[in-house]
């Protein structure tokens, strides 16, 4: 089976204004298969966002290629839809206007896009808030709007950059469950960045652990925990084993990272 998304020997170097250039990603290769839910896990500054930005076509690799269905991604790729860590909602558009945006710029007729937008607004449980502006919503609600905006646009791949990092624990759990439910329903390939080992364990089919800067693949672990991953799964020995394994991988990296920074 061909991977839907792949990175082949990708290196990304940022030319810093002063001082040495920063190697953000170093010779990283990874294949992502259709329908998978992959979590990218790694220390802060290890190049996770950079990697995701290359998949979305916002920046190009210095060396190597990123491909969508075998063709290199060389410009912004709407088929790889992104959820930004900082929401990036249009403040001048209502919830409905934001969710309709992708359909509107593809010239979908007004009735059709209204109906589709409504479907996704209902899905993320924002019914009744259609005419609110983003500033009138809580952080969790805004993040749900970005999710609805992305899903209504129906991209082939979902890229998510720490989408739940700013949410409180309770909202985050609700959002995780919602995301899993959506993933079970439409089997969209998802690449999800997180700092949280638990989040990775609860959401993913596969976990890519990245090394500290420069970002390389440290390990790729399949996550075969049974789903749905409710509390009983989270308390099972298998969960604890996998968590310990990942923690050891990450711990050495975090320490290494701290040392290089001090």
């Amino acid at each position, binding site marked *: 089976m061909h991977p839907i998304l792949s990175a082949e020997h990708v290196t990304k170097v940022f030319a810093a204004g002063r001082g040495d250039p920063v190697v953000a990603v170093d010779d990283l290769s990874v294949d992502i298969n259709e329908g998978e839910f992959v979590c990218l896990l790694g220390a802060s500054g290890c190049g996770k966002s950079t990697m995701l930005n290359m998949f979305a076509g916002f920046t190009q690799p210095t060396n190597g290629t990123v491909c969508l269905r075998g063709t290199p991604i060389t410009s912004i790729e709407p088929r*790889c839809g992104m959820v930004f860590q900082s929401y990036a909602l249009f403040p001048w558009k209502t919830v409905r206007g934001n969710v309709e*945006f992708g359909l509107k710029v*593809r010239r979908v007729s007004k009735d059709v896009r209204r109906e589709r937008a409504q479907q996704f607004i209902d899905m993320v449980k924002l019914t009744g808030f259609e005419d609110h502006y983003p500033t009138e919503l809580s952080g969790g609600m805004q993040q749900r709007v970005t999710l609805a905006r992305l899903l209504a646009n129906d991209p082939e791949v979902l890229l998510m950059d720490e989408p739940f990092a700013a949410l409180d624990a309770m909202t985050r759990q609700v959002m995780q469950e919602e995301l899993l439910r959506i993933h079970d329903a439409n089997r969209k390939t998802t690449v999800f960045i997180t700092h949280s080992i638990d989040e990775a364990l609860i959401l993913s089919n596969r976990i890519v652990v990245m090394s500290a800067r420069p970002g390389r693949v440290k390990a790729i672990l399949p996550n075969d925990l049974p789903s749905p991953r409710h509390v009983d799964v989270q308390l099972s020995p298998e969960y604890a084993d996998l968590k310990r394994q990942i923690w050891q991988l990450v711990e050495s990296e975090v320490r290494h990272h701290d040392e290089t920074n001090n």
Partner: protein
Amino acid sequence: MVTLGPVDDTASAAVVTEQGDLRRKIAVPWMRLISLASVVTVMTLWYVSTEYGWILPIFLPKPATVWQEAQGAFAGGLLLTDVWMSSKRVFLGFALAGIVAIPLGVAMAIWAPAKAILDPFVSLLRPLPSITWIPLTMLWLGIGESQKVAIVFMGSWIYILLYTYESTKRVDPLLIRAARNLGARDIDVMYEVIFPGALPGIITGLKVTLAISWSCVLSAEMVAAQNGLGAMIWQAKDWGNLALVLVGMLSISITVLVADQVANRIERLLLPWERDRHQ
């Protein structure tokens, strides 16, 4: 100095009511009271000092004289004609400046050659006060309406241009990225992201410039005009009618304040997503 008291006071009261936060809600009744007290104090000082002859009428007329003069000017319809003439000139020059400068400002922000072309002229023209255009515009356009409108235009367009440029530049690049990621083309990015993103800043610029436009028209009218508030003040001075000068000054303040209120209303209509900021 003393005559400017009431005018200054209204201006500072307006500033107080525009700070939109919680503190304001608590502070407003008190601040209103203090504003009122300060107006009453200055008016009393004015009344007492002129009534008892501490200040001679040739330097500062009595409040009652000013009031009579105002009634007279108002009843004859002359005052309203002057307000109307000045307003019309401001509106035409200001609208023309907006029509020209907003597209140019956007162009400068999104297309580097446009900036390269306009930059030298902006740098050269910006330091010139609008009155310096009076000789040239009179030579080219005479002393009719178009000359007044031209003065307003010349004094306003650069500010609108600069505000538009700045606010277009400052549209969050992340939002442009998000739009493109959702499949937006250049034209969509322009109409759906850059323009609405720049709009609050452009409107702020227009509001600031509107006050500047008013000062332009007044100086133009003082130099060469048959009517308008600037001409009225200047003529009143020639007749030695100081009370009428004060009436003219007060009319200017009130007219500009009313124009500002109208502008605020329009702003609220155009920027519904910022309504919590305007409350």
